[in-house]
């Protein structure tokens, strides 16, 4: 069964502290992993995808196939990072179903 697990519903860190949002997955094929973010009063949007290997807004995420993880990290959290973060999985290519985790609400304390 395909599944995405985000163990933390709520996460609070102080401004300037490192932050890590955990994501583990199970998938029988070759997955593509994503992080989506929803800021207050905004729509859900893509933050980054593992294929791009980009750093977006200071966030990075490395796909660890051995541990089946795709944790989202940022070395120095900013107040504007406060948002809801969803880890998502899809099969490689297009037309595949996306599976979402339950989300982690990140609060960065000034």
């Amino acid at each position, binding site marked *: 069964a395909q599944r995405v697990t985000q163990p933390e519903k709520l996460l609070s860190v102080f401004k300037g502290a490192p932050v890590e949002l955990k994501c583990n997955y199970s998938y029988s094929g070759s997955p593509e992993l994503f992080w989506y973010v929803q800021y207050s009063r905004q729509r859900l949007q*893509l933050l980054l995808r593992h294929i791009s290997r980009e750093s977006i807004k200071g966030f990075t995420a490395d796909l660890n196939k051995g541990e089946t993880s795709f944790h989202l990290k940022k070395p120095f959290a900013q107040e504007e990072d406060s948002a809801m973060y969803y880890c998502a999985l899809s099969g490689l290519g297009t037309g595949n179903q996306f599976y979402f985790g339950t989300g982690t609400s990140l609060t960065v304390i000034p």
Partner: protein
Amino acid sequence: SAVISQKPSRDICQRGTSLTIQCQVDSQVTMMFWYRQQPGQSLTLIATANQGSEATYESGFVIDKFPISRPNLTFSTLTVSNMSPEDSSIYLCSVEGLAGGPGTGELFFGEGSRLTVL
């Protein structure tokens, strides 16, 4: 990218009634998806809306409860029928890729429709 407009943005409905949510995209897209986001839960795919054919429903969702229309490549509707309080949720329209071209593998979302059923 695609710009997606959903309406209504929110509504309060009475038990037993039905509500239709509209989703308009500013470009032609091959695949449109309808998700449900219940409080504290992940986004759950209800169905894939296919242009020119019936929608494809996921396990646990049926056409009688969630009829979907897809009259063209830029528009879709989702109806929540015979509503009960358990249907209170955010319903999201989403698209991936452009018609006739390669998909991006990225989902674009509408702002969501927040339904409260009394």
